[in-house]
């Protein structure tokens, strides 16, 4: 992590020259930029340095384009890609449509026969792997399981785009968060079928309809920052896949709301009140949203993110375990909090020089030190453990992720009206219901070791 001086000007000293360049290149957030500019008003040497560096930047910008595109290269590129690499285009002419339709039926017969064999073999493989402790989870079994999950979620989505969380056993105050988790299962599986696109479209419309003028998704309740953080993450991931610019204005407001809710110490609580104490559980969702938004091109997030990460880092104890609102204080246990915190730190390290490699190594050791418990006992813990294993990118983490996913696969319902879902019999089932258990289990299952 860079030191304070690199992004905050002390009254007595000059900013780092690198920060003067960053200021000229619009790389500082508003607060940092204002601090550098204020300093330059009274410091002749920094003004002179800025003028010199600014002149270099201008000289570069004044230089005309190096090369013009003389011709379109698209055809030449396409010629080098095998035709069978593309998905068939069913909008071809009538002859093509007939041929495709016939081939599709033929292929469907083959797929059903072959698929059935594969599924049976996969399940036999899964159960044998589970007992032998082998590493890989059969790709086909996962694909089939996730397809079933999406089908179930699509089947229970209301025409308005809402998932009735209460009707499926969840609490009303978490309806939006649960809807956000359900949307995420589609946003992270961009299988471009018409049905999936339609589910996403309806869900997005419903969520946008719940946004208030101040940017908050949903009502001002105790659970509002869970709702808001999760929905913002879901919409950002949807935006990343669809590129739907109509989402941008809502996301601008949602991200600003998160920034405004940041407490002075850097964390987030259930609400930004004078007596509020930040906690890891709420803060991780807000940081996820900010990190995602920065990746997707939202600017001026650096200061908020760094402040948030610094606060999150202050929750880690000497053994690499995260506390709830201070180190070594975790009334509900440390496993989920540590997985959440580590996941966030690993995610940040992909784009930010946010933590020393020593801390990251310590966190990697911490997440594999916890015994993997039965997935059925806590799907939420399971999801964050899977996310932490996935972003840690070590062989041991891959092995643990595979083990966890086998446990999830075994718990999925296979028959009846709820085939494809997971029963909400875990620790949080009474708050989240079946939409929660299904969405969170699917999110953990789809991660690739």
């Amino acid at each position: 992590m860079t030191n304070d001086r690199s992004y905050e000007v002390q009254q007595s000293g000059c900013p780092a020259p690198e920060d003067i360049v960053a200021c000229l290149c619009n790389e500082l957030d508003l607060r940092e930029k204002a601090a550098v500019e204020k300093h330059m008003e009274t410091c002749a040497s920094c003004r002179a340095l800025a003028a010199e560096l600014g002149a270099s930047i201008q000289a570069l910008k004044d230089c005309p384009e190096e090369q013009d595109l003389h011709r379109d290269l698209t055809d030449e590129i396409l010629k080098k890609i095998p035709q069978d690499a593309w998905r068939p285009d069913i909008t071809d002419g009538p002859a093509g449509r007939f041929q495709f339709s016939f081939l599709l039926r033929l292929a469907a017969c083959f797929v059903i026969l072959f698929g059935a064999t594969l599924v049976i073999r996969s399940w036999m493989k899964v159960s044998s792997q589970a007992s032998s402790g082998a590493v890989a989870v059969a790709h086909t079994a996962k694909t089939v399981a996730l397809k079933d999950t999406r089908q179930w979620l699509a089947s229970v989505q209301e025409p308005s785009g809402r998932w009735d969380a209460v009707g499926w056993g969840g609490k009303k105050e978490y309806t939006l968060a649960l809807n956000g988790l359900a949307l995420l299962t589609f946003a992270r599986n961009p299988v471009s079928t018409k049905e999936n696109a339609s589910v996403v479209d309806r869900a997005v419309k419903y969520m946008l309809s719940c946004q208030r003028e101040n940017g908050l998704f949903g009502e001002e309740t105790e659970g509002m920052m869970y709702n808001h953080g999760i929905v913002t993450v879901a919409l950002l991931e949807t935006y990343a896949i669809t590129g739907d610019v109509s989402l941008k204005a809502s996301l601008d407001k949602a991200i600003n709301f998160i920034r405004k809710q940041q407490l002075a110490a850097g964390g987030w609580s259930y609400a930004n009140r004078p007596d509020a104490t930040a906690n890891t559980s709420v803060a991780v969702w807000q940081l996820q949203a900010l990190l995602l938004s920065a990746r997707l091109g939202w600017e001026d997030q650096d200061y908020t993110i760094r402040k948030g990460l610094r606060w999150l880092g202050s929750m880690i104890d000497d053994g690499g375990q995260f506390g709830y609102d201070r180190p070594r204080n975790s009334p509900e246990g440390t496993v989920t909090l540590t997985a959440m915190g580590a996941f966030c730190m690993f995610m940040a390290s992909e784009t930010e020089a946010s933590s020393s490699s020593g801390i990251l190594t310590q966190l990697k050791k911490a997440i594999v030190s916890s015994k993997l418990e039965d997935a059925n006992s806590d799907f939420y813990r399971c999801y964050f453990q899977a996310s932490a294993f996935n972003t840690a990118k070590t062989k041991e983490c891959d092995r643990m992720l595979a083990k966890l996913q086998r446990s999830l696969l075994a718990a999925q319902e296979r028959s009846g009206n709820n085939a494809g879902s997971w029963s909400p019999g875990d620790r949080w089932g009474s708050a989240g219901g079946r939409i929660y258990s299904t969405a969170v289990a699917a999110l953990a299952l789809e991660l690739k070791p």
Partner: protein
Amino acid sequence: MMALAAEGDKSAFVALVSKYQGMLLNFFGRMGVYSGDGDDLVQETFLRLFNYRERYKPTAKFTTFLYLMARQVQADYYRKQLRRTAMVEAFGKEPPQEEQDNGQNEDRKFSVNKALNTLSEEMRCVIVMSIYQGLKYAEIAEVLDVPVGTVKTRMFHALQKLRKVIKHDE
């Protein structure tokens, strides 16, 4: 769009090529690639993008992924051109120019390109990506696999060096 292309959607891939081919050509030009080779490198980058499409994470910014591919293609190009570069250096010649530097713009272009040639490849890349390609420091850091602080430092030293060279020429 990239997620669709990764799923085998040809029209999505075509849209990406149409949108980004000019930008890539300019990137290679600014990085000192001989102008006659620019088209080949753009094609190679998109083919690599296609071949590695399954590695793309929808949560990552597409241009960051594209520049990662472009940097790999550029590195391969430099390795292949080693003999030619060594020859150019041995004879103390600049890479061949397609046009004469007779206008004011061309003079400025020549001067700036000469200044860019004095930078190390690492510094040049940071300048080109930030000033010409419009990437944020965080994206450049991701493409180059270095901390953001390193990007900031390289940017400052590169601009300082460029100023000296451009001033000297003036």
